[in-house]
């Protein structure tokens, strides 16, 4: 009898294997929870920032085009022409300053909406322009008095969206 009591006392010392395993599982689960939290948070954060940037670029592009057209809405001053850089349709605004004609080209190249301000007879190259906003599609067209412009953001983004702008050209009326 004394021997059995002695053995029980011995067994009660320290921790059993099951306890160690349970604690290890608990710690592992906690580690996994923290890891998942960090990974999913950084993913969500990235998505939120991407979406914000996408929306911001589209807003800047739409607002810039709208302002530029409205400011320059004069007789025979706004045209749609294929640009010499990539041959895509672009908006060209002609202004007369000090008896010389200047052209403002609004065009898309390398997923960037750009503006170049040059003399009418000057050769036009991409390095003359400056960046406006990062967009992937820019399709301008004129039908009767209405200029229609389609712009779209990053196509790879989950939040890809298009904007359809319409501007009534007062200079084309009548």
């Amino acid at each position: 009898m004394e021997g059995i009591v002695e053995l029980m006392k011995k067994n009660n010392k320290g921790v059993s294997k099951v306890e160690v395993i349970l604690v290890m599982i608990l710690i592992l689960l906690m580690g996994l929870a923290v890891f998942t939290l960090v990974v999913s948070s950084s993913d969500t954060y990235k998505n939120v920032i991407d979406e914000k940037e996408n929306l911001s670029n589209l807003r800047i592009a739409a607002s810039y085009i709208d302002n530029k057209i409205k400011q320059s809405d004069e007789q025979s001053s706004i045209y749609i022409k294929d640009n010499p850089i990539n041959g895509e349709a672009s908006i060209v605004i002609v202004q007369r300053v000090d008896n010389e004609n200047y052209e403002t080209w609004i065009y898309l190249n390398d997923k960037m909406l750009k503006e170049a301000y040059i003399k009418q007879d000057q050769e036009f190259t991409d390095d003359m322009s400056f960046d406006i906003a990062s967009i992937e599609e820019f399709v301008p067209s004129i039908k009767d008095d209405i200029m229609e412009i389609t712009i779209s953001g990053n196509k790879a983004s989950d939040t890809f969206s298009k904007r359809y702008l319409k501007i009534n050209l007062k200079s084309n009326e009548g």
Partner: protein
Amino acid sequence: MNKKNGFTLIEIIISIGIVSFLSVYLLQIFITAKNLNEVTYDLDNAVIVSKSVMESLSAGEKIGPDSDDIILKNARKLSDELIYTVKLGDDFQPVDSDFVDSSYIMNITLDLVDSSELSNMGLYNISVDIQREKPYFLKSSQNKEIYALNASKGLLLDIGGDTSD
């Protein structure tokens, strides 16, 4: 002295508590950020679509099936008064008027102020407003007005055929 290594149960419970608190807080931040992005998306699109409709009306576009403008073409007359409505999808493009699950509704209200027999023109107060039909994530309010645009414009008195259903 027998020195014990490792964590006590209390330490683990406190850690789990901190992690849970952080997750709830982070989740709340992300839901708010997502909803704010959606509000921005709605407002951006609502401004562009409302302005485009106003520009089309200024250019002499009719409201109804004869219109070249895709939004005005889908406008349906609600009553005898000059109130038109267009159902819009997630991309702010018109959907069928019978479609029950539309995301947004645009109301165009025309109010004649003064008419001129000579020029066949009338001065109208035009009001364009866009409402969101679906609530934002974890929000309950429905039919929230996103944007409203008002202007007075001279329009042709014949503003298109009756498009009421």
